[in-house]
């Protein structure tokens, strides 16, 4: 990962006494300004091109992909994911469903389609572009992940159990960082993700563009990188565990109008 000037800049900042409140306000201002000046729409544009591009052995585009609202219906589809899909008999999040369409519609092998699911700043991945485009088609639609089918309920319960499960090289669970109010890592405020009021603004703005590394990041990546930092082995892409966690978080955030793809520091 390239950072500006090659290294993390470590600073001795002069302490501003009793300025914690001001600091918080200034950081909010920073976050608002980066959101206003975000290049995130470029990823949506590129995603649209990919969505319509014929690919794979069948040489067809993804335009007939059914994301849950019918073949090719994009409006509001992301806001209703993850959900149960009868044709696959499992709960799927956006990326898992895209992968399903790549293999079934386009005739691509799972290996080929998942060869490079997380891109970098020089070459974002197909999943990242597509996620940006599809998610953008749900702006203004309230989050309503599936929570009625038995398999959806099962995914929610598993996600919840995973959220509080302590293991890995540093004994962590998701709740180690996201379990208590008013905590920060460095300057980053940590949302208490098992509480609806905290989960809502977060889930309503993923996937997202990260300005710190100029990369567009998906929810599968977010889960993957949390586990990396928790010092676990790697969760497999589109596995039940990752879908379950995404289901748990999105159901917790239900009702929030989607306003992503977002822009994060």
């Amino acid at each position, binding site marked *: 990962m390239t950072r500006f000037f090659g290294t993390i800049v*470590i*600073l*001795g*900042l*002069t*302490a*501003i006494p009793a300025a914690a409140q001001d*600091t918080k306000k200034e950081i909010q201002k920073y976050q608002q300004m980066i959101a206003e000046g975000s290049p995130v729409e470029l990823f949506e544009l590129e995603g649209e091109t990919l969505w319509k591009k014929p690919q794979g052995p069948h040489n067809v585009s993804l335009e007939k992909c059914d994301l849950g609202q019918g073949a090719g219906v994009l409006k509001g589809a992301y806001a209703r994911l993850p959900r149960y899909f009868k044709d696959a008999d499992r709960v799927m999040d956006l990326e898992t469903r895209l992968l399903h369409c790549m293999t079934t519609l386009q005739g691509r092998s799972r290996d080929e389609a998942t060869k490079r699911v997380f891109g970098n700043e020089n070459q974002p991945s197909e999943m990242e572009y597509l996620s940006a485009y599809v998610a953008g088609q749900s702006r203004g639609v309230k989050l309503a992940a599936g929570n009625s089918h038995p398999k959806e309920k099962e995914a929610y*319960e*598993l996600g919840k*159990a*995973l959220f*509080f*499960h*302590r*293991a*890995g*090289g*540093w*004994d*962590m*669970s998701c709740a*180690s*960082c996201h379990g*208590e109010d*008013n*905590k*920060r*890592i*460095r*300057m*980053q405020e*940590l949302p208490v993700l098992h509480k609806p009021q905290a989960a809502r603004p977060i889930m309503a703005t993923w996937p997202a563009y990260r300005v710190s590394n100029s990369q567009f990041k998906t929810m599968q990546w977010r889960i993957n990188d949390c*586990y*990396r*930092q928790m*010092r*676990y*082995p*790697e*969760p*497999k892409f589109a*596995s*039940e*565990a*990752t879908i*379950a966690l995404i289901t748990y978080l999105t159901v917790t955030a239900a009702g929030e109008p989607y306003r992503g793809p977002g822009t994060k520091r």
Partner: protein
Amino acid sequence: MRTLLFSAVLLSGIACAQSPVDVQKVLQRDFQARGQATMERVVQDGLQRVCTDTHDRPPSELARQLEADQMKTIDFPQGSLIGDWKRGERIAQGGRGLTWNDKPGAGEGSCYNCHQLAPQEMSHGTIGPTLLRFGWMRGNGPEMQRYVYGKIYNAKAYNLCSQMPRLGYSGTLTSEQIKDLVGLLLDPESPVNKQ
């Protein structure tokens, strides 16, 4: 690798209260080893299991016993435990170590992620308590040195379900590095204790 130091008898009562979902099985199926992050890491040890099952509120008797087991993992070096605070500050700033894309052995403390230490560093976390002026307030005698060394080596020996990693026990930091961190916290010349 990791020794499981807990009493199976004491644990048995708690295991029954577990949720119906078999998370351990799911982790085995859905995770894969990568780099130094091997699959052994998803196998819970005793305290991870107790803390998970009790939502970090273990019965006090059990907690005391498991903490005592953890205390046995700490190998206290002889002599002064106060190392070089300047090296300690660098270790406190860094966040590498033990992830699947870190080189084995290249560990750092991640201290500022959760704690305030030197007042010059404004970008500090708040998951752990502030350690500003720690040595100035608590002194730096042999007992305090031992406490700080032990706490960094294995925080669970002092508070079973602490969110702080067992930095020595997990192999993240070496004994020398921990001494340097003790220096950062206790040396009167350290910025933590200046002003």
